[in-house]
């Protein structure tokens, strides 16, 4: 039990995928203008990440490894991720048209969110078992959602403040992201 808690703490805070490993920066910058949209994106990514890390574990260990086909892992994982994202997109379109409209192109782009493929590949290199893979994927997604919401809240506050002209828009957002990343580095060394 303790190791699962450690995996969660490790992926959410210490080895945060966005701010420490610098994966998934596209939606991090793209969908962080509004807190609502950021939370929606985080939840959609949580669903995709958890499911795809479990799926890719099953595919790798029960289909690829027995036949010595480990070299095909990338294409197999992408196939699984694309299927889960396609499913999520349809479900979101049906259940929440508002969120569908707000997320726009970033919803299908979860497919190319490198954090999703990164989790699947890291699960393989770190030899995680089934439950560890699930917790690893879920933790990574919770960490992603956390920084998305934090960053979107910061950007909403920045919108209302008087930013010097050369820093308006993307530059101040990148500086903010950099400062957040440095803050998260403070967790370094707490857990492996």
């Amino acid at each position, binding site marked *: 039990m303790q190791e699962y808690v450690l995996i969660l703490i490790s992926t959410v805070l210490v080895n945060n995928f966005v701010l420490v490993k610098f994966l998934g920066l596209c939606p991090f910058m793209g969908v962080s203008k509004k807190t609502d949209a950021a939370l929606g994106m985080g939840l959609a990514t949580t669903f995709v990440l958890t499911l795809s890390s479990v799926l890719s574990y099953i595919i790798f260990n029960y289909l690829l490894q027995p036949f010595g086909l480990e070299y095909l892992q990338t294409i197999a994982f992408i196939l699984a991720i694309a299927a889960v994202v396609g499913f999520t997109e349809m479900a979101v379109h049906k259940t929440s048209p*508002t969120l569908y409209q707000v997320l726009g192109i970033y919803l299908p782009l979860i497919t190319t969110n490198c954090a999703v493929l990164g989790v699947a590949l890291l699960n393989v290199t770190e030899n995680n078992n089934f439950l560890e893979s699930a917790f690893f994927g879920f933790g990574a997604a919770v960490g992603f959602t956390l920084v998305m919401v934090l960053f979107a809240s910061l950007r909403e506050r920045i919108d209302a403040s008087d930013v010097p002209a050369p820093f308006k828009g993307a530059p101040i957002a990148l500086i903010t992201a950099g400062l957040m990343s440095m803050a998260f580095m403070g967790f370094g060394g707490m857990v492996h």
Partner: protein
Amino acid sequence: MEEWFISITAAILIFVGLAIVFGLLLGYAAVRFKVEGNPMAEQIDKILPQTQCGQCTFPGCKPYAEALAKGETEVNLCIPGGTDTMILISEITGLEPKEVEVTEAEHKPKETAFIDEDVCIGCVLCIKACPVDAILGATKLMHTVIQSECTGCDKCAPVCPVDCIDMRAPPVSLENWQWPEPTIKSEGEAK
């Protein structure tokens, strides 16, 4: 059978199998989560006042809702709906709220029609004029306005032959209370 042949066949079979499984899953999802029309247009159409007044430059409320759902127009065009409707629309579409531009010289608070029931002669002219069917009554019988349905479009007042309809502001409640309009202060206090 050579080793490489088995390996390649296994690879092809596994990937065909995976593709079929995921294809079936997505096919099922496409049927299960099928979206009829544009659900956002339906949602917006529900909150529009349905006066079909055309002040938004669209032929009616439904076309305006459809244009909004596609993101082709502004959120602040519904004048009968006023600020409340504009805020609801911007919440549904996720677009930035914008102030409703009222064409009249001064900003009028929302009003609804009242019928002076002692004067009403039961001519049914106002019932015919009402675009939202908010007036109740029959020929030679007294009419009255269903307050919750009235949108304050002021189409009934001009047709009344005995002039018994007037527009009144509804009582202030928690739902419609607003900060008073800012007034210009004398130079000493004004910033």
